[in-house]
């Protein structure tokens, strides 16, 4: 991976955001792949998704003052760019269409979660 390229390089397994920690930034994968996992109180974890170049994560903490809802770590070497809350919100104020862009992805994620929930309930 090119060291002169944009963002920060995370080694395989290195954690980018920790579930339960406070956070004010969103992240966009520039290259490689990251894994989103949900950690349970008994120390177990559940795989939620893999994200690739162009995908974003950590957006929930930008829009609500809540702690990170999942842990995201590099799956193989990954390069990830941090987006400041201030920069993002300033731009959304000028160009609300950017928020529509993010909303579309977030709504797609809710749809996927809903269908997983339905499958889970059906299996019980």
């Amino acid at each position, binding site marked *: 991976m090119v060291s002169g*390229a944009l963002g920060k390089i995370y080694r395989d397994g290195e954690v980018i955001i920790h579930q339960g920690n406070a956070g004010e*930034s*969103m992240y966009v994968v520039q290259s490689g792949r990251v894994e989103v996992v949900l950690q349970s109180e008994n120390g177990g974890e559940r795989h939620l998704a893999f994200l690739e170049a162009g995908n974003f994560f950590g957006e929930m903490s930008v829009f609500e003052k809540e702690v990170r809802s999942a842990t995201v770590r590099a799956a193989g070497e990954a390069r990830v760019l941090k987006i400041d809350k201030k920069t993002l919100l300033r731009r959304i104020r000028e*160009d609300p*269409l*950017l928020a529509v*862009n993010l*909303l579309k992805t977030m709504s797609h*994620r809710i749809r996927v979660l809903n269908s997983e929930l339905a499958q889970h309930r059906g299996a019980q």
Partner: protein
Amino acid sequence: MGLSSETSVADAFAGLGTGDASEFELRDGSRIAVVGGGPAGSFFSYFLLKMADAIDLEIEVDIYEPRSFKYCGPAGCNHCGGIVSESLVQILSAEGIVLPDTVVQRGVESYVVHMDVGDVAIESPVHEQRIAALYRGNGPREGGDTPLESFDDFLQGMATKRGARVVRQLITGVDWQEGLPQLQFASHSARSYDLVAVAAGVNSNFIKLLDDHPAGFEPPKTTRGYICEFRSTEEEILNILGSSVHVFLLDIPRFEFAAIIPKGPFATVVMVGDDLDEELVHAFLNDPVVRRTFPTNTVPCVCSCKPLINLGARKRPYGDRIVLVGDSGVTRLYKDGIGAAFRTGKAAATAAVFHGVSGEDFEQHFWPACKSIANDNAVGRIMFATNAIMKNSRITRRAMLTMAQKEQARADARPHMSSLLWNMFTGSAPYTEMFRGTFHPGFIGNLILSLGSALVPRQKNANVKNSEV
């Protein structure tokens, strides 16, 4: 989870903007011409087609651009320092636009400020490479053997993937026929369009042709900049400059500011000053502070130019069926011109797709984006004037240096001066925000203390090193 935002603009707006149809609304089959395929033209075309697609509007977009950005040297280059600002890199990412490694020649993580009284390295507040150093064309004149890709070509590719057609022709004039703008070509043929977006920059005669236009455009004020590319090996350039952009605050008459930017085996020197001429360029390159940072006598200059910089807003960058984006219209003062091309290009595209292409539509839905840049530039002028005063006095130079050095040395210090210098040089924040920061009691207090210590004779001030970074 995991859908790219790139695929998804404005779907929620589908169906909007189709209330009472007006003659100035874009319809299926509408034809749009874009004069100039630099950043402003490509961003405008990309967003226009993306948003039109989201509301199932079928339009034709022709980008007129005589240049091929695949050439090395001036033939393929829209002469510029090639810094994509921290804020633009972030916003592009949030838009789903990731700059490829082949386009980014170096990710920048710090700026080193050089003065005769010493140097200070200012690290990125997030310790991450979020500024891109790149080439607009296919690199300098002698760069044919280096594996790099042009930024302007990458942006144009985004627009063509969305369906824009690139026509390699120079536009020689614009006329009005039955209420429609008509572009004229060197071959004396002409073609009418429903909308013409002028994205021809300021380094072209085309914008002068618009001076007589009934909409009463007034061309922007300009000044000349100087760019020179030095070539060595990648290792050597890394050795000398690291991953930092080097900026210079020097007390040379007529000198405004200059930067040296590492890009693979090349280093770009960019300079701005009043009545910039050979004498000023020589005075800068031979200044001892520049020599100790970058010995230009040991690396050859392989490409140079003196392009125009837009210094002020056009009075009215729109009319019925015509809109001026990027440098041809309104841009940011001295910094982040590519960011301004993005902002004005997208604002014009949004206005055209969701509202219409009359002068009134652009006034209401495009001009606010330009006005916010123009108003911010007014504050920027005050900032640059203050900077000029401060850099001309050794005492204030030393105070700035001491304050920034102390902040950089302590992880828990609030980086008042560092943030100001970082934002001023990187163009990452609006000038208004930087200006507000200078009224912070911490900034004022620390500056007064630093001024005090700068007034103390040098021997007593032994704890502040004239460090070379």
